[in-house]
Structure formats: structure tokens, C-alpha cells
């Protein structure tokens, strides 16, 4: 009898902090890394008499997220109180949206790994259930005998993006989070830095025998702190559940915690009583009405999404997939590329300079925080375009261009200026090159003999000598022609 095959079904709840200047229901500043409890006011601390007032920008950003993910935007949404006692929320309820969220449905386009890194992988659209807006809670730090609470994060606008159970592998989960993050960063919603808590993720994982329609017992996974952590935690949990079932055991609906260092999940202390949040409409807040004109105005602000841009770059500029994959997740880099292309004739070469040389220089100019931001670099699209053009015109060889790239990057000097100052202009002076080539042929009788004896590669030694004599400035194509001409005599 063959063994039963199991398949995993995963749904994700992703929380994303919307980047606003002030908090969701009060105008005290929102931020990260400030001294503890300084981003607080009577509303954040739930002091008696304090009243919430909505943040218009947070609502606009939520509508924008809904539009870019193809959701239906609710014409009316309202605010509900989710009641619970926990020190992360001093007023003992969190303002959220229960039965009338701001966005319904929608989908996230994902790309799975291709056969090789040079080939685009298969794409699929993952269905969303809903997106609602709520306020974030304070942050607890646990110590040996007690816990400390910092309310700086409390009250920050927080979007909860809930997917359908429509993901079927850890790789799909990884692709989903990557794509979602890229889209949200593109649209200026959030930096989605998981390490700063700007994006957080819980996963609902279950397995079922292949062919079974009903979902298996669901386990909620928490403490998934990085995109790779989500993938690893989900992968472990699928294996754990599958082995329990294979061994004839049964699964419990529970919440488990991912331990990234030891790489396993453990059941969290089961709650004494099932949660009863007693949601009810918040009497302090009026509903939001959203009309067509408002939606259309926001729709116009939505930038081209990463996958759409990638398809366009491949089609419009003939870029290979391998150039677009490092380029397209980064909107700023894409804008840089298109500004470069507007000034030069060869989009493929421009893309090569950007994804290889520019990214390398940014990375080595960076620090422990990451690569240098493109905006801080002295190199502009005009620099890259000039370099492409100088090679294209035959003014410098591509080797010289490679050599001066770091200096252009470091100083912000235009490539043509560096070429002039250093006398690096490629020699295409036939007379001068003929003299040098003849000299090299006289000096290298061995290589000449080998070449004449049929060893084609021997010409490279001669070319090398010519390049050396001209300090790399000889036009290599011309050198090849002249050498062959002289050797055939």
C-alpha cells in the first residue's frame, strides 16, 4: 500500500505599519527608535476624557493599498473596539475594524523560482480575504521577574492584510511576502522592514491528504520575524504536522511559536479561556464614507507595480530577465535606469552597468546598515549614460570604462573628464598602432612563429603586448585587424 501524500495549505496575516507623520487617532508623532514613552499623549495612554480623531493620510494610504492589490474599496467602513486586557494597550481595547473593513478581496501576484536564475519563473495570483486598518499596540520587553512597556508604537496606523488559505508551500509564502513588500515599498506605504517591526507576519498552517477538500487542523505560527524566518518556520511546521499524521497521531488547533535559533516550533501556553473580544462599534469615532471621485484621485497616484515594470523593461528595452530581477524590486533604481536610457543608445549596456557596477559600488560604500542609498551617491544617470556612449563611440574601450567607473562613482566627475585628464582616450590612430604592432611582432618571434604554425591563440599574447604598450588605450578591434594584416604579409 502506498503511503498517503499530504499537502500544506497556508494563509498569512501580515501587519504593515503605514508611514504617517502622526498616529492613527491622535496627532502625536509616530516613529521608531525614539526614547521610550516619548511618542505618547492622552489618547495613546487612554487617559480619561481623551478622544480619538482619525488620521486622513492613514485612510488614504489604506485605500491606495486596496487599489494596488485589486481590492474592492468599501463605500462605508467603521471602527470597532476589540476588548482585551493586556498591558500593551492601556485603554483595554484596540480600535480596529471588525465587520466593515476598508478593503475586501484582492490578490497578490507572486513569482516562483525559475529553472535557472536567468529564466523568469511561473507567476500566480494569491487571493486576499480583506484588509483592515487598526491601531498598533505598545511593545513589551520581558525580563526575569517582570516586563517593561514602551507605548511609542501604540496607536500607530497598522494595516492587516489577510490572505485566503491560498498558499501551498514555504517557497510560495516567501514569494508572497517578497512581492507584497516590493509593492508596498513602491507605493510609499511603508519601508516594510521586518527587523524594525514595520512588517510582521503570522501564518496559519495546516496539512491534508492530497485530494481532500476540507482543510486540516489549523496551527497559528507566531514569532516569524524575517521573511526567511517565515519560510523556515512554515517549512518546519508542515514537516511536523505531516509526521504527526503519518505516525497515526492527531493535531490540536493551537498557537505555536517559532524558535529561529533552534529551528523548531513549540506550543504556546494555552489560554485559560478562549478569547472573547466583545467587538462593538466605537462610539467615539464616526464612520468613513468613500466616494468614486476620491478613489479615482488616489488611483492616479499609484505607480506602476514591480512585475508590470519588469514585463515592460523586457519588452520595451529588450533587457534579459537576469538584468531585470535585481533592477525591478527597487523603484529608485528603475527610475535611475530609465533616466540613463533617455540619455544613451544602449539600454542593455546601461542596465549592465547599473546592476553590476553601480550596485557593487553602492554596496562597498555602505555600512552595517546596508548599501549606500542611491540618493546619496554622486553618480547620476548622466554619468552612466556618458560612459555607455564613450564605449559605444569607440572613444574608450570597455576595459577602460570598467577602470574609471569606481572613480566616477567616488568623485562624481564626468567620465569624459576623467578620460581627458588621464589621457585614456582609445587610440584608433592606424598609423601609430601599425608602428607599435610591427615593433611587437619583431620583439615576440616565438608567439609569431606559433601563430604562423597554426596556433590561433598565440595572437592574444601579441595583442596583450600592444595593449600594454598603449596602456590599454588601443582599440582592440583595430589591433586585431592590424596584427592579422601584418602577420599575413
Amino acid at each position, binding site marked *: 500500500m502506498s503511503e498517503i501524500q499530504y499537502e500544506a495549505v497556508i494563509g498569512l496575516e501580515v501587519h504593515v505599519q503605514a508611514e*504617517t*507623520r*502622526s498616529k492613527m487617532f491622535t*496627532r*502625536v*508623532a*509616530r516613529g521608531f527608535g525614539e*526614547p*521610550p*514613552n*516619548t*511618542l*505618547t*499623549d492622552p489618547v*495613546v*495612554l487612554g487617559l480619561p476624557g481623551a478622544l480619538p*480623531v*482619525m*488620521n*486622513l*493620510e*492613514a*485612510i488614504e494610504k489604506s485605500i491606495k493599498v486596496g487599489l494596488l492589490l485589486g481590492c474592492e474599496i468599501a463605500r*462605508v467602513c*467603521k471602527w470597532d473596539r476589540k*476588548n482585551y*486586557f*493586556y*498591558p500593551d494597550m492601556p485603554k483595554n481595547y484596540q480600535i480596529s475594524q471588525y465587520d466593515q473593513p476598508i478593503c475586501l478581496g484582492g490578490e497578490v501576484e507572486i513569482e516562483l523560482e525559475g529553472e535557472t536564475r536567468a529564466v523568469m519563473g511561473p507567476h500566480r495570483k494569491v487571493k486576499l480575504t480583506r484588509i483592515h486598518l487598526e491601531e498598533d499596540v505598545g511593545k*513589551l*520587553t*520581558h*525580563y526575569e*521577574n*517582570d*516586563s*517593561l*512597556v*514602551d*507605548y511609542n508604537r501604540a496607536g500607530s496606523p497598522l494595516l492587516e492584510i489577510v490572505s485566503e488559505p491560498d498558499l501551498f508551500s514555504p517557497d510560495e509564502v516567501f514569494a508572497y511576502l517578497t512581492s507584497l513588500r516590493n509593492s508596498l515599498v513602491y507605493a510609499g506605504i511603508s519601508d516594510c522592514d521586518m527587523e524594525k517591526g514595520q512588517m510582521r507576519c503570522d501564518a496559519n498552517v495546516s496539512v491534508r491528504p492530497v485530494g481532500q477538500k476540507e482543510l486540516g487542523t489549523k496551527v497559528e505560527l*507566531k514569532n516569524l520575524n524575517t521573511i526567511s524566518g517565515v519560510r523556515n518556520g512554515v517549512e518546519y511546521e508542515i514537516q511536523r504536522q505531516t509526521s504527526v499524521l503519518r505516525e497515526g497521531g492527531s493535531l490540536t488547533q493551537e*498557537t505555536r511559536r517559532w524558535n529561529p535559533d533552534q529551528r523548531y516550533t513549540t506550543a*504556546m*501556553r494555552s*489560554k485559560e*479561556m478562549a478569547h*472573547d473580544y*466583545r467587538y462593538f*462599534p*466605537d*462610539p467615539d*469615532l*464616526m*464612520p*468613513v*464614507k468613500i466616494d468614486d471621485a476620491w478613489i479615482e484621485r488616489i488611483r492616479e497616484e499609484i505607480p506602476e507595480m514591480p512585475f508590470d515594470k519588469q514585463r515592460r523593461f523586457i519588452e520595451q528595452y529588450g533587457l534579459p530577465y537576469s538584468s531585470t530581477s535585481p533592477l525591478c524590486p527597487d523603484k529608485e533604481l528603475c527610475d535611475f535606469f530609465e533616466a540613463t536610457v533617455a540619455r544613451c543608445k544602449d539600454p542593455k549596456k546601461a542596465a549592465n552597468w547599473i546592476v553590476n557596477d553601480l550596485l557593487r559600488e553602492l554596496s562597498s560604500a555602505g555600512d552595517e546598515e546596508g548599501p549606500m542609498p542611491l540618493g546619496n551617491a554622486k553618480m547620476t544617470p548622466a554619468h552612466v549614460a556618458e560612459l555607455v556612449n564613450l564605449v559605444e563611440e569607440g572613444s574608450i574601450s570597455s576595459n577602460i570604462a570598467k577602470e574609471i567607473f569606481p572613480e566616477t562613482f567616488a568623485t562624481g566627475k564626468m567620465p569624459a573628464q576623467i578620460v581627458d585628464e588621464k589621457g585614456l582616450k582609445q587610440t584608433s590612430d592606424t598609423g601609430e598602432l601599425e608602428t607599435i604592432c610591427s615593433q611587437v611582432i619583431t620583439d615576440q618571434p616565438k608567439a609569431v612563429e606559433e601563430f604562423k604554425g597554426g596556433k590561433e591563440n598565440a595572437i592574444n599574447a601579441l595583442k596583450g603586448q600592444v595593449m600594454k604598450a598603449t596602456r590599454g588605450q588601443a582599440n582592440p578591434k583595430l589591433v586585431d585587424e592590424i596584427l592579422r594584416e601584418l602577420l599575413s604579409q
Partner: protein
Amino acid sequence: MKEPQTMDVEYAANLARIDLTVEEKKKFNGQLGDILQYFEKLKAVDVEGVEPMAHAFPRHNVWDEDESRAGFSAEEALSNAPAKRKDQVVVPKVIEE
């Protein structure tokens, strides 16, 4: 007349983190039962075709522009805290989630 409504006072008290004595439980059970009965009266009203609403006034879209202002100092923020350390509120260690 319907049977008097009862509610699980113990459950509600637990959710609200309130300790009640046996006498209080009995007392509130009666009082809350009376309130629930009043809701039965309200339920008798025919609301067919009336849209549910959370507010008595038809106001909507009450918001502020996203401009930030300074908040409390840590000292002010913690002035009601029974215990504090490192500019944060000290609470009993409760790891729930």
C-alpha cells in the same frame, strides 16, 4: 411575559477582571437580568427595513490632516505608573502571545 433573562455574571466579571463576592454575584445577576429584559422590550420594535447604525447623528469623515506635534516627556507619560524602570512601565510578567 417571557422568562426573566439571566447572564453569566461570573464569565462577564472574569472578562472585565473584576472580583465579585457571592453576594455581589447574586445582586448583579438580578440587576443585569432586569437590564436584559429591557432589551427584550426594545427587540419587540419592528425595525424591518431600517439600516443598523452605531451613532445617533449622521456624521462621517471626521478627521485631521496628518501633521505631528510633540507629546509627553517620558516623565509625564509615566507619572501615573505604579512602578517604572528605564523610562518604561513595569508590569507583572505576563507572556500570553
